């Protein structure tokens, strides 16, 4: 259990540690969480269901076994009572009459008639002396004068006093049981009274048990020979087709599988003073029919709970994973932005250093060239004055160009003095658009304004915000073809920000360009630009506490969105 639980958890932890933001990772994570959660919820449910099944089956078995045991116990008592009554009747006759009275055939016949009237089932009655000779006989067979010394039962009765035989078929091919009783007088003379019982009464007792259809009950002796007819296992005196279960005086229930492969409960008990055992067999499937319906309900509940648990686990996990994915993406975005700001600031420092270092030699070049021109101008007779003049002009123009670059580099890097005043951004936008209207008109570019009327005034720096708008609008104007369209919007974004966007339907940017567009010295206008415009724009917006976003698609256009804070930020 511990292994099962700890392995997925450690895997999940390991996965969380990785920075790979791939969809495969989330799939894997989802699968692991689902399987783990399903495992911890289904294992208790499964074990509960299993335990319940086991307990229920035991209870059901006990409930089926108890009536069977009681039935066999009751029927056993009936048999014992039946045999005891008959044995005591024979015993009573043996002791109530003298040997002489019994040895008289007419007397014995009369006694037998009375006995038959009082006790059903007797077939005949005979008196046998100690020597084993049949002295007298009352019954349907002519057995008088027979000698029984060779017979096993004769010795048994001599020894035990009473004897009940196994079932045998008599001369009439009818199952019988012999009851023999020895009587000894005070004078020491002894005789044996022997009666035969018809086993029809056994069948009657068994049918009185009221067995269900499919069930079976019969008598069997120690050697496994059927003493009464069985519904399923044969006729009288057939050998039982299976091993007798262990049997004692008490009725006890076992389960067994018979030769036909059917599962049964079997209850058996020995009948006192005989060699017989009463056996009752009840097949299991019918016994369990109630259990099966109960189990169907349980199975339904179990399966539906499993499905429910699985669905819930899956839903919850999916939600969890998508949240995780979202927060991962946000985190990645934040990291990316932080990296970008950091890169910008270090590039800014580098730019400032470079500009500073270059400015001094530039100043020297400027002065030297200036001096050369001064000297030349002082001398009217200077040879090749025009030629030299052109060279000096070129040097000075180049210096002027360099000066422009270094100053822009420095203005990118420096923390400009911010002059915050409360402004109407719409007014700044309109003013800035004014600078571009002539070019737009000339190129037939539509400059559409969708400015919010209720835009709140915000504290910001007029010059800087104008520079931002100018940079973005200039880029938009450069991107659109003649006859294109630029839409300038402003709106009240949220509690803390207002939004301004500039949308053009120009050439757009590749993903690579969009990624690098705020980097210093990154330019797409090879000849005209320094690549500082957008990085300065970015720096200003950031410094004013705003956000700048770009949405672009190659050949379809670009939308630049700026969010500006409604309240001024410190620093």
């Amino acid at each position, binding site marked *: 259990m511990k292994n099962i639980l700890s392995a997925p958890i450690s895997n999940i932890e390991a996965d969380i540690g990785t920075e790979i933001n791939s969809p495969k990772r989330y799939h894997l994570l989802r699968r692991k969480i689902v399987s783990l959660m399903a495992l911890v919820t289904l294992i208790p449910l499964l074990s509960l269901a299993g335990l319940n099944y086991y307990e229920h089956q035991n209870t059901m078995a006990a409930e089926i076994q108890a009536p069977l045991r009681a039935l066999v116990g009751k029927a056993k008592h009936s048999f014992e009572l039946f045999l005891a009554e008959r044995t005591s009747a024979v015993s009573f006759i043996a002791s109530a009459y003298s040997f002489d009275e019994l040895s008289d055939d007419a007397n014995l016949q009369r006694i037998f008639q009375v006995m038959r009237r009082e006790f059903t089932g007797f077939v005949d009655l005979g008196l046998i002396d100690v020597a084993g000779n049949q002295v007298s006989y009352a019954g349907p067979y002519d057995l008088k004068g027979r000698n029984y010394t060779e017979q096993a039962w004769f010795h048994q009765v001599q020894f035990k006093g009473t004897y009940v035989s196994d079932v045998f078929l008599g001369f009439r091919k009818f199952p019988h049981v012999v009851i023999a009783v020895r009587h000894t007088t005070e004078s020491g003379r002894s005789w044996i009274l022997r009666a035969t019982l018809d086993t029809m009464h056994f069948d009657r007792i068994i049918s009185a048990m009221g067995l269900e259809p499919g069930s079976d009950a019969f008598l069997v002796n120690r050697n496994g020979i059927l003493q009464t007819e069985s519904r399923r296992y044969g006729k009288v005196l057939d050998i039982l087709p299976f091993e007798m279960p262990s049997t004692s005086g008490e009725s006890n229930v076992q389960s067994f599988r018979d030769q036909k492969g059917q599962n049964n409960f079997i209850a058996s008990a020995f009948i006192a003073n005989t060699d017989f055992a009463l056996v009752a067999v009840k097949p299991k499937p019918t016994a369990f029919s109630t259990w099966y319906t109960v189990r169907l309900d349980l199975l339904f509940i179990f399966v539906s709970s499993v499905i429910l648990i699985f669905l819930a686990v899956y839903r919850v996990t999916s939600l969890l994973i998508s949240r995780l994915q979202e927060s991962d993406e946000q985190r990645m975005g934040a990291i990316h932005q932080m990296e970008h700001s950091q890169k910008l600031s270090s590039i800014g420092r580098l730019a400032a250093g470079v500009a500073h270092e270059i400015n*001094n030699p*530039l100043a*020297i070049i400027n*002065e030297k060239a200036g001096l050369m021109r*001064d000297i030349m101008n002082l001398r009217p007779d200077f040879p090749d004055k025009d030629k030299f003049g052109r060279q000096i002009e070129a040097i000075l123009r180049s210096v002027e160009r360099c000066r422009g670059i270094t*100053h822009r580099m420095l203005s990118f890097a420096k*923390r400009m003095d911010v002059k915050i005043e409360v402004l109407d951004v719409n007014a700044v936008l309109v003013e800035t658009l004014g600078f571009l209207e002539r070019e737009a008109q000339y190129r037939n570019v539509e400059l559409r304004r969708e400015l919010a009327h209720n835009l709140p005034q915000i504290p910001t720096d007029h010059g800087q915000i104008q520079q931002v708008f100018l940079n973005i609008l200039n880029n938009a104007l450069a991107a659109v073809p003649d006859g294109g369209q630029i839409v300038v919007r402003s709106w009240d974004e949220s509690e803390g920000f207002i939004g301004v966007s500039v949308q053009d339907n120009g050439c757009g940017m590749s993903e690579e360009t969009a990624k690098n567009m705020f980097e210093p010295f990154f330019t797409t206008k090879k000849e005209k630009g320094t690549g500082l415009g957008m990085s300065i724009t970015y720096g200003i917006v950031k410094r004013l506490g705003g956000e700048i976003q770009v949405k672009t698609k190659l050949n379809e256009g670009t939308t630049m969105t700026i969010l500006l804070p409604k309240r001024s930020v410190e620093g």
Partner: protein
Amino acid sequence: MDINEWNILLVDDEVEFVTTLAERLDLRGIAARVAHDGESALKAVADAEPHVMVLDVMMPGMKGIEVLQRVREQHPAVQVVMLTGQGKTRDGIEGMRHGAFAYLTKPLDIEELIRTLSEAVAAGQGTHHA
């Protein structure tokens, strides 16, 4: 005041720059002395007060702002034009706050310098008379 009567002091650690600039002013009839650090600049001011001092902000040793403060304290008649060699507007404004007359950025435009100098000289004359 006539341009020939101007007394200018140029202070910059860039020797080539400052001497060339002095030469160019000289060609235009403006007398300009040169100092390469704060100490010698203060000494030059003490020797003979210039009308205008053109002072570089970034110098090794004594910084431009410090030189400016000392000059404003000891020689209030001297007008100081700050030279922000690094193009840092902030330094220039900082200088103005400490009493500088104006600030210029490098590389210099000689015409602009002369214009600023003449304004400074005029301003200096004003304080003299007052």
